[in-house]
C-alpha cells in the first residue's frame, strides 16, 4: 500500500499522543520536557507531509522556523530547570505543587 498523506498524518498523530502521554504521565520534569519535544516533532512531520503532498514548500519553511524556536525554547526551558533545581534540589513534579518557589 503506497504510503499516502494519511499514513504520515496517522504516524504524526500517534507520535503526538505519545508526547502527550509523556507530559501527563511522567513525573520527572526532564522527561516531561522531552515529551514536549516529541509533540513538536510530530507537528513537524505533519507539516512536511502536507508540503510534500500539496507540492508547495511553505510547510518546510514552517518546520524550519519551528526547529529554531524549539531550540530557543529548550535553551530557556533548561535554564529554568537548572534554576529550579538549584532552589529546590528536585526535578520531580510532585514536590513543586505550592505554586510558589
Amino acid at each position: 500500500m503506497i504510503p499516502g498523506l494519511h499514513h504520515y498524518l496517522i504516524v504524526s498523530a500517534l507520535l503526538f499522543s505519545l508526547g502527550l502521554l509523556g507530559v501527563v504521565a511522567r513525573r520527572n520534569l526532564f522527561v516531561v520536557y522531552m515529551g514536549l519535544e516529541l509533540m513538536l516533532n510530530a507537528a513537524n512531520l505533519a507539516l512536511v507531509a502536507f508540503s510534500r503532498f500539496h507540492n508547495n514548500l511553505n510547510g518546510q519553511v514552517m518546520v524550519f522556523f519551528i526547529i529554531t524556536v524549539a531550540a530557543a525554547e529548550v535553551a530557556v526551558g533548561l535554564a529554568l530547570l537548572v534554576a529550579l533545581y538549584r532552589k529546590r534540589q528536585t526535578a520531580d513534579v510532585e514536590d513543586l505543587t505550592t505554586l510558589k518557589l
Partner: protein
Amino acid sequence: MEHAAAAAAAAQHAVESGSKVQDLAWAILVLPLVMAFGTAVFTPRDRMLSAAMNIGGVVVAFLLSFTLFCVFGGQSVDATPFHWLPVAGLDARIGLHLDALSTLMLLVVTGVASLVMIYSTGYMHDDRSYSRFFSTLSLFVFSMLGIVLADNLLMLFVFWELVGVSSYLLIGFWYEKPSAGDASKKAFLTNRIGDFGFMLGILVVWSLAGTLDIAALKEKLVANPALLGPWAGLAGLLIFMGAMGKSAQFPLHVWLPDAMEGPTPVSALIHAATMVAAGVYMLCRVFFLYTAAPGWPAVLGVLDVVSAASIITCIGGFTALFAAVIAVQQDDIKRILAYSTLSQLGLMVMAVGLGAKTGDASASMYHLVTHAGFKAMLFLGAGSVIHACHHEQDIWKMGGLRTRMPRTFWTFLIGTAALAGLPPLSGFYSKDEILAVALEANPIFFGVGVLVTVLTTFYMSRLLLVAFLGKPRGEGADHAHESPSSMTVPLLVLAIPSVMVAWLPIGGFLAHHFQPGHAAHGGDILFGPFNHNPIAAFFGLGAAIFGFSLAYSLYGNGPAADPLSPRLGLLAQAMRHRFYIDDIYDGLVVPLHNLLSQVADTIDRWLIAGLAVRGLAGVVEIAGRALRLVQTGSIQTYAFLLTASVLLIVLLALK
C-alpha cells in the same frame, strides 16, 4: 392654613344651608372639643382658668341640649352633615340626628358631666396635673356626644373608638401607678376586641343594605324585612359585640372592675353613667335590626332555632346575675359599685333583648336614664367618703360615717334606695318596667330580674350598714369630716332626679319613640306600676325588702369582719377572685398571643431570615469551596485538564 380652610368650609357649609335650629347640635358637639384643645395647648399651667373653661363648656352644652330637648322633644330631625370621607359608593359623613332618644341622652350626658366636673374641682384639688384631667374629661364628653348624635354607623364606630381612647387616658390618669397603667391597657384592648366585631357588623350591614345611614337602613328594613337575608342574625350579633365591649357584658366585662384605678369622678362619669351606657344606647338606636326577620348563614345552621335577640337576652341576664353574685363579697367600696353597675347593665341589655319580642325597648332606655342619675351620685358619694378617709377604699376599715358625714350619708341612702327600687324613687319605676317586660316576654328572665333585685339590695345595704353605721373601724374613718361643699353640692343636685324623675312621663316619652302608635299610659305616674302590672311591682318591692332584711340580720350590729364569708367558705373565695375569669384570661389569652408571636418570631428569624437568605449565601460559598479543589498545583492535573478540554472542543467541532 389647611386646617383653617377645612374648618371654614364646614362652617360655611352650615351657614349656606340656612342655620337651622338643629345646627345648635354642632355647637353642643364641638364645644367640649374646643375647650379640651384650648386647655391642653394654651392654659396647661393655669388651674383655675382651665377648670372654668371646661366646666363652662359642658354647662353651656347642657343648656343648649335642654333648649333642643324643649324645641324638638320627640320629633326626629337632622342637622346639616359634614361629608367626612366622600369616596364612590361609601358616603361616610358626620351627620347629627336628633330624636327622642338622642335629646334625652344628650341631657343625661351633659348633665352628669357638668356635675362631675364641678365635683372634681374639689376632689382633684391637690392633684398635680389638674388641667390635664379636665381637658381629658372634655375630650371624653366630646366623644360621648358624638355617639349620642351619630346618624350613621361609621360615625358611631369612629366616636366608639374615641370614647375608648378617652377612657384609656382617664383610667391611666395616675400613670405612675403600675396597676393604673395595666388597667388602662386592659380596658382599651378589651374594648378593641368589641370594636373588631362592631366593624365587621358594619361591613356586613353596609355590603347588604348599601347604606350606612341608620334612618335609611331602618326604612329599607321596614320595607323589606328579609333585606339582610341569612346574614341578619350574624350582623345583629356582631354589632352587639361592639356593645358587649363598651357595656362590659359577660365575656368582655373584665376591664370594668379594674377601671376603678382611675380617679373616682372618672368612675362616676364614665364607668357608671355614660360610657358603659353607650352600648345599651347603641342597641336601642339599631333596635330595628333585632326586630327584623332573623336568619343565619348555612354554616351556622345550628343557631336557626334561636334569634340574635334571645342570645342578647341570655348574655344580659347572665351578666346581671354573675356580677351581682360577685358584688356580694367585694370589700372595696368602688369595686362593689362597679359590679353593681355591671349587673344593672346586664339588666338593661336583657331588657333590650326581651323588648325585641314585644317591639319596645323603652324599659331599658328608661332604666339607663335613672341608673345614670343615682349611680353617678353613689360613685360621687363613694368619692367623698374616700376623700374624707384619706384614700381608704376598704369598707371594713370604715364605719360610723353617718354622724361624721351627714350630707354624704343621706345622699348615699337615697342612691341605695333608688338602686334597690323602693317606690317613691326613680329606680323602682324603671326596674318595674323591666320586670313587666320580662314577665310579658319570658318568665324565666322575670325570675332572674327578681333575684338580681334581691342581691342588689343585699350588697348595697351591706355597704351602707358597714360603712356608715356602727363604730369607725379604722383611724381614717375615725376623724373623717364632711367633704367641702364643692363636692357635696353636686351630690345633692344629683339626688333630685333620683327622687323627682319618677314624676316625669319619661317612660311614656320613650315608649312613644319605639312604638309611635302605642298610647302613653298617662294618669298618675306615682302608682301607675301598681295598677298596670301589679305582679311585677309587688315582686320587685318584696325582693327589695327581703334583701334589706337579710343584710340587716347579718350586718345590723356592726360586725368587725364579714360574717358571710366563713359561712360561704369556698364560694366566698371564688366570689372575691371574680370567679377567676381574669386569671383564666391571663392564663389563656395572653400566653396564646405570646405563643403565636413567639412562633412567628422564630419563623421569621430562622426560616425566612435564616434559611432563605443565609441559604442562598451558603450555596454560593459551597460552590466557591468546590471549585477551589481543582487548583491542586500539580502540573499533571493542569495538563490533563488541558487535554480533556482540547479533546472536548475538537469533538464538538468535528461533530
